[in-house]
């Protein structure tokens, strides 16, 4: 197990390096002079020259990368040109709404998807199964921001049940906080729920056809015990994989869904940065998200090794 952990940790190094390089070179993909583009057409040549100097654009490229990389490694992502604050501060202050939204969406999707998946697997081939799977297929085909717009149209504009824009932090009360997040969380969680329900169903069908289930039934165990204690626990591993892998999709979706509901999260930070050509913010935010994603996958991988001895043996 120790060898597995060390190997897995070492394999992160080149990946992190490439991620950093990609984010660094993003600025150099800008056609023309990045400093001039960032300052816009009204900037004077002196201002552009000053910014070039400030950004270190006159240094050789490897030196620029080295300087940038050592800064980033120390947690310094540079300063936002527009907001005049360190990018790290801007990132942290916009993290709350995105995290709340992603967690609520994940909770919502697990809550509806797993019972549906188990039920569909038990009633395999019946009308119930087919209906749920058609709904799941539809759910997978609606981009979250589109569902967000449609929900907004029905529950916000027509029925006027829930607010369509705005945000209130957790400090101002749980219901106040959640109220603004219900529609975003449903629209973000729906696609997630569809994927998890399909996965749960197929994983349960696989397990239910195995011999140990037959044995359990033959022993005279109750249906409930067989389904939940024997089958579901074994079906859980692929479901957990999906939960881990879709975290990226969740953050992705959150970024777009937030802008629909004007939530002041990471999505808004990035989108505003684009219109303001605030490249340090764009770089910093996507770097932080990518690194979080990589570490999350690492943790999930290591957890498997812990839970399932077959994993750690086969990956040696």
């Amino acid at each position, binding site marked *: 197990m120790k060898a597995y952990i060390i190997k897995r940790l070492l394999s992160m190094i080149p990946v992190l390096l490439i991620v950093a390089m990609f984010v660094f070179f993003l600025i150099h*993909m800008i056609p023309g002079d990045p400093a001039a583009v960032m300052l816009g057409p009204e900037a004077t040549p002196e201002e552009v020259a000053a910014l070039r100097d400030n950004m270190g654009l006159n240094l050789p490229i490897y030196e620029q990368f080295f300087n940038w990389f050592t800064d980033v490694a120390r947690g310094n992502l540079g300063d936002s040109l527009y907001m005049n604050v360190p990018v790290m501060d801007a990132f942290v202050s916009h993290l709350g709404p995105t995290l709340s939204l992603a967690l609520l969406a994940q909770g919502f999707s697990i809550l509806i998807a797993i019972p549906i998946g188990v039920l569909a697997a038990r009633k395999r081939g019946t009308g119930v199964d087919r209906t749920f799977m058609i709904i799941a297929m539809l759910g997978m085909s609606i*981009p979250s921001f589109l569902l967000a717009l449609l929900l907004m149209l029905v529950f916000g504009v027509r029925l006027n049940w829930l607010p369509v824009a705005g945000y209130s932090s957790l400090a101002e009360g749980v219901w106040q906080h959640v109220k603004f997040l219900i529609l975003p969380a449903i629209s973000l969680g729906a696609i997630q729920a569809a994927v998890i329900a399909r996965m749960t169903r197929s994983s349960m069908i696989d397990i239910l056809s195995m011999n140990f289930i037959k044995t359990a039934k033959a022993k005279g165990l109750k249906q409930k015990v067989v389904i939940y204690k024997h089958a579901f626990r074994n079906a859980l591993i692929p479901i957990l994989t999906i939960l881990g892998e879709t975290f990226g999709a969740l953050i992705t979706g959150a970024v777009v869904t937030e*802008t629909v509901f004007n939530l002041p999260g990471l999505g808004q930070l990035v989108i505003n940065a*684009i219109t303001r050509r605030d490249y340090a913010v764009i770089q910093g935010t*996507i770097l932080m998200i*990518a690194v979080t994603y990589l570490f999350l996958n690492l943790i999930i991988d290591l957890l498997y090794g812990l839970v399932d001895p077959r994993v750690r043996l086969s990956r040696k």
Partner: protein
Amino acid sequence: MVITNDAQVNELSLLEKNVKKERRKLLVKRFVSNKTLVTGTAMLVFLTLFSFAGPLISQFSPLDIDPANRLQGPTAEHWFGTDNFGRDLFSRVASGAQVSMGVGLSVAVLTAIIGMVIGLYAAYYSILDHVLMRFSDALMAFPDILLAIAIMAVLGPQPVNVVIAVTLAKIPVVARIVRSSALVIKEQTYIEAMRAQGASSWRIIWRHILPNTVSPLIVQVTYVFAIAIILEAALSFLGAGVPAPDPSWGNILFDGKIVIYNAWWMTVFPGAFIVLAVLALNLFGDGLRDLLDPHSNKAIKE
């Protein structure tokens, strides 16, 4: 048996023809009996027809501004209503279909070609494999839309740049699929035999490994097509995709968001077409997978 006369040769070629005919019949039969595939195909045909015939049957241009008739609901004249500039929504959604599906198709074709080359060579040369797979790990660490947003921020909002951004985000997925099936093929005895006979690596890769990786590639690319449509819509919706005034499903939704209180049709119609296109491609992909791989469990997608 040694074939000695013309009659036998004829008989043999006739037999061959019959076998081919039967095979084709079987394929048609399997296609028709595959409801998912037939439904997906029918929807795709409809969408293609709509995107090309729509602008022709509409009497309005998608770009003509008519402020007097702005934000009109659906009528006999304007089937889908008009937008906030008085432009006819039906012809905008129809020519938007060309843009959105065009972007999706370009991404699908490009990722297929590039992903195939990377996947095949990564599988064949293990040193290259290590390097390329670390690159793909790194690219896959960025959620696809964020990667696309970052690239668009740098390159500027243009349809071509949408294609570049989304292709870059999706190449690793396709390359991995090709690589994993190529790795299995590479270990087969017949490849070893070819190598022993002195066949060039070019020949082995392109003539003998490639054909065996095509089925999973095609299926995966269908899903990439669907994802590309979603990403284009999302990018344009955020104002980082296809720029105004040219219509795409995403930027019609962008316009519609501003007037969502007054004009439901600007959200519902382009939205419905996005869902239709993505659903069609998902069904098509699922059906194709069942058709190409008879062993696959129909119930499982991932």
